[in-house]
C-alpha cells in the first residue's frame, strides 16, 4: 500500500513540475540540440558556440554556397535566423518581415508575416531601422517590431497569437532588440537613448502577452526594482534611492539607459543578465552625477525582475559608451577555483569578467591597446573608488566643458565593440570578439528636450587611431587573465556576430561583405567568400539531413552604415596626405540576402 501511494505521489509531482516549467525545459533541451539554433545567441549563456564539427579547420577551405535567399529589404540586416527542425525563420529590418522557410522542401516559403507599421517610426530610430532577430517559445515565434509591438506568431502558420505594445514611438521609443523567452515569460528591452526615453526591460506572459513586470534603468527604487538592502553593487547594499540621488531633479525621467542589447539567462541561478545604455543627453555637463543605473550590468531574478546585483561600468558617461553589449556566461577556473563567470566586452573598451552569482569584479582590462580615456579600473577593494574607471583629464569632455572640442579620444562613440556579439569556445576557453578600432573628437553643447525629437547634444567626428589605417580587429581574448591571445586586422570595423564551433573554426562577417573562417587556435584565415552586401548580421550554424550548414545575413547598414558609407573623416585630408582608407561604398551596396554555406557533396 505504501508503495502504491508513493508511486502516485511521485507521478503527480512529476506532472506538476512539467506543467510549471515546460516552456523553460523545452527551450533548454532544444538549445542543447546542435542541429537547431533556437534562440538569438544559440544558447542561454550567449556563447554562440556550436557542437557541430562536420565543418572543421581541415576542410573549411572547401566551403561553398549551398543556397541563398533575398529578403526583399534594403536596409541594414542585423541578427540572424532561427532554425528549428526543418524550418528556418528569417527576419528583416523595417518593415520587419518574417519568413518561415521549409528546409526539407527546397527552402520554399511556408508562410510570410509583414506587419503594417506607421512609417513615421523610421526617423525616430537612431541608427537605421535594424532588427536583431526573433525568439521562440511554446510554439510561437516572437518578433519585436520597430513600432515596439511585441507580436507572437504561431510557428506553424504565422498567424498572430497575441500582440502587446511595449512603448510609444511618438516619444522616441522604438524596438530593435531581440526578445528572450525565459520560462513562461518573454523578456524584451527598448531603444531610444538619443531621444530622452526612460528605458526598461519588460516581461510578458508567454501564453497571453500580458505584462508581468517592468524594470526601468533609472528612477525610484520601485520602478527600477532594486531593493535598498538586498540588491548589491560590488558586494555592498545599494541603499535607498540609489538612482534618484545621482540625477539632478527630474532628469532621470528622460535619462535613457536603454536596453537594446542581448540578454542571457542562467537557469541554475534563475537569473537574467543584460546591460543598460547611455544616459541622455550626450552632453555630460547637462546631467551632473553618476546617472545611475545607466551604463550598468543588471543581474535580475528571472521570475520577479528584482535586481540581485548591479555594476555601473561608466559612471557619468562623457562619450556615449552604452553598456548594452552581451553578457557571456561561462564556467571556468580562476586561480584554481571553479567560478561561474560573466564576461562582457563593453563599448568603453574594457572587457569585464565578473562572478555572475554575486557580482564580484574579477578582471577589467582594455581589449584594444589604443583605449585612452581611462588608465584602468580601480581594483583595490578597500579604495573609496573601488570598481570605478579612472578618467584621464585629456579625454574628459565634462572637464573640457560645453563648446570645447576634445580630440583623439579612443574608442569612438561606437565603442571598441558595439552590439555585434562575441563568441566563446569551451574547447579553447577563448572569446572571439569582433571589434572597432576607431577614435573620435567629441564636443558637447547644450540641447533642449522635446518629446519624440533627437536629444543628442554633442558633435563628433571619427577616424582610425593615429598612424593606423585599419578600423577593425577580430581578436581572441582570454577572459580569465584579460589578455589578447591573437588579433587579426580588418580594414573596416567588424560589425558581425561571431560563431565558434567544435570543428575548431570561428566564423565572422566583414563590412565589405566577406564571410570569413579562421582557425580558433591561431586566428589563421582558412576561408573567405564575398556575399552580396556588407555583413552586420550574426553567423549561425545548423544541421539538416545530416549536413552542417553555416548561414549569415548580409545587407550593410546600421550605425556602421552611417559613418562608413561615406568614409570616416580623414584627419590628414586637410594636410594633403592620401588617406589609407577608402569609403565602404567603394566595396559594397545595399541589399538583404541570406547566404547559406556547406561542404560539397
Amino acid at each position, binding site marked *: 500500500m505504501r508503495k502504491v501511494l508513493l508511486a502516485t505521489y511521485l507521478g503527480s509531482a512529476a506532472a506538476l513540475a512539467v506543467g510549471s516549467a515546460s516552456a523553460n525545459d523545452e527551450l533548454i533541451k532544444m538549445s542543447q540540440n546542435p542541429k537547431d539554433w533556437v534562440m538569438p545567441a544559440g544558447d542561454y549563456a550567449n556563447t554562440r558556440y556550436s557542437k557541430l564539427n562536420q565543418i572543421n579547420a581541415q576542410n573549411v577551405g572547401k566551403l561553398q554556397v549551398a543556397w541563398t535567399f533575398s529578403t526583399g529589404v534594403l536596409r541594414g540586416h542585423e541578427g540572424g535566423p532561427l532554425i528549428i527542425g526543418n524550418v528556418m525563420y528569417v527576419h528583416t529590418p523595417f518593415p520587419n518581415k518574417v519568413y518561415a522557410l521549409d528546409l526539407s522542401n527546397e527552402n520554399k516559403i511556408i508562410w510570410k508575416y509583414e506587419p503594417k507599421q506607421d512609417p*513615421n517610426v523610421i*526617423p525616430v530610430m537612431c541608427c537605421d531601422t535594424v532588427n536583431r532577430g526573433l525568439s521562440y517559445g511554446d510554439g510561437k515565434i516572437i518578433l519585436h517590431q520597430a513600432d515596439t509591438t511585441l507580436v507572437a506568431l504561431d510557428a506553424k502558420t504565422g498567424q498572430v497569437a497575441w500582440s502587446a505594445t511595449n512603448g510609444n514611438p511618438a516619444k522616441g521609443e522604438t524596438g530593435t532588440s531581440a526578445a528572450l523567452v525565459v520560462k513562461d515569460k518573454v523578456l524584451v528591452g527598448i531603444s531610444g537613448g538619443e531621444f530622452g526615453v526612460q528605458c526598461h526591460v519588460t516581461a510578458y506572459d508567454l501564453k497571453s502577452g500580458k505584462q508581468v513586470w517592468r524594470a526601468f534603468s533609472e528612477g525610484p527604487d520601485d520602478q527600477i526594482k532594486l531593493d535598498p538592502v538586498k540588491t548589491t553593487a560590488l558586494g555592498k547594499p545599494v541603499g535607498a534611492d540609489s538612482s534618484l540621488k545621482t540625477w539632478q531633479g527630474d532628469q532621470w525621467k528622460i535619462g535613457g539607459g536603454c536596453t537594446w542589447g542581448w540578454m542571457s539567462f542562467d537557469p541554475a541561478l534563475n537569473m537574467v543578465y543584460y546591460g543598460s545604455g547611455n544616459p541622455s543627453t550626450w552632453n555630460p555637463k547637462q546631467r551632473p552625477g553618476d546617472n545611475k543605473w545607466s551604463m550598468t550590468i543588471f543581474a535580475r531574478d528571472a521570475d520577479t525582475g528584482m535586481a540581485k546585483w548591479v555594476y555601473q561600468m561608466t559612471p557619468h558617461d562623457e562619450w556615449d559608451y552604452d553598456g548594452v553589449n552581451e553578457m557571456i556566461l561561462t564556467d571556468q577556473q580562476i586561480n584554481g577555483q571553479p567560478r561561474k563567470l560573466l564576461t562582457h566586452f563593453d563599448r568603453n573598451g574594457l572587457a569585464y569578467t565578473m562572478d555572475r552569482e554575486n557580482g564580484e569584479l574579477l578582471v577589467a582590462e582594455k581589449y584594444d591597446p589604443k583605449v585612452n580615456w581611462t588608465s584602468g579600473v580601480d581594483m583595490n577593494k578597500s579604495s573609496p573608488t573601488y570598481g570605478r574607471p579612472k578618467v584621464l583629464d585629456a579625454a574628459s569632455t565634462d572637464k573640457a566643458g560645453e563648446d570645447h572640442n576634445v580630440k583623439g579620444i579612443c574608442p569612438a562613440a561606437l565603442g571598441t565593440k558595439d552590439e555585434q556579439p562575441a563568441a566563446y569556445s569551451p574547447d579553447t576557453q577563448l572569446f572571439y570578439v569582433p571589434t572597432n578600432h576607431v577614435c573620435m573628437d567629441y564636443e558637447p553643447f547644450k540641447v533642449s528636450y*522635446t518629446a519624440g525629437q533627437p536629444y543628442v*547634444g554633442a558633435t563628433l*567626428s571619427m577616424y582610425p587611431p593615429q598612424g593606423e589605417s585599419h578600423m577593425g580587429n577580430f581578436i581572441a581574448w582570454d577572459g580569465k587573465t584579460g589578455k589578447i591571445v591573437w588579433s587579426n586586422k580588418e580594414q573596416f570595423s567588424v560589425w558581425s556576430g561571431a560563431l565558434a564551433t567544435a570543428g575548431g573554426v570561428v566564423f565572422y562577417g566583414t563590412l565589405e561583405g566577406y564571410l570569413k573562417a579562421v582557425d580558433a587556435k591561431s586566428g589563421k584565415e582558412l576561408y573567405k567568400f564575398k556575399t552580396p552586401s556588407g555583413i552586420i548580421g550574426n553567423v549561425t550554424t545548423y544541421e539538416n539531413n545530416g549536413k552542417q550548414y553555416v548561414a549569415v545575413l548580409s545587407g*550593410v547598414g546600421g550605425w556602421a552604415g552611417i559613418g562608413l*558609407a*561615406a568614409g570616416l573623416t580623414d584627419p590628414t585630408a586637410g594636410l594633403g596626405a592620401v588617406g589609407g582608407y577608402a569609403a565602404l561604398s567603394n566595396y559594397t551596396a*545595399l541589399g538583404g540576402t541570406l547566404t547559406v554555406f556547406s561542404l560539397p557533396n
Partner: protein
Amino acid sequence: MRKICSVIAVMIFVASGGVAVADGPGDPTAVKKEDDGKWLDKEGNPTYKISADGTVDWFTYSGYRRYHSDCHVCHGPDGMGSTYAPALKDSVKSMSYGDFIGVIASGRKNISTAQENVMPAFGDNPNVACYMDDLYVYLRARSTEAWGRQRPSKKEEKPEAYTKAEDACMGKK
C-alpha cells in the same frame, strides 16, 4: 523667436506650393553681412564667407556643429550621405533655400516599393529649428566644396546679436 516666426511663414509657403525639385541656389558669393554674422548672396539668401586663410563665418562653423549633432546620424559625416539617407551636400545643389527650410520644418516622405525613406519634421525641435540657417550655410559651403571634410579651425567670433536671437529661440533667459 524671430526665427520660429520665419519658419512658420516658410511652412505655409511650402504647404501651398508643395516641395518641388527647384533650381539650385545660384551664385553663392556673399555680398552683405547682417548684424548676427550671417552673410547673404545677391538674392538675399544665406551664404558662407570663407577667407583665404581658412577663417569661416560664424554660421558655417555653427552649422558644422549642429549638423554633426542632429543630422549626421542619418545623413552621414560632412553631408556625405549614409546607406539610408541622401548626401545633403548634393541635395542642396538642386533645392532653393525656401525648399530646404520647408523640408527641415515639415519633413518629407519618400516611400516606394523598394525603399521607405522618412525625414521627420524638425519645426518643433529648437535644437534644429533655431539653427536652420546655420545648417543651410554650412551645407551650401559643402556643396561647392568651398569647405571640405573637416572641422573649421578658424572662425569669426559669435556676434552678440546672434547670441541674443539664439537665446530667445532656445527659450533661455
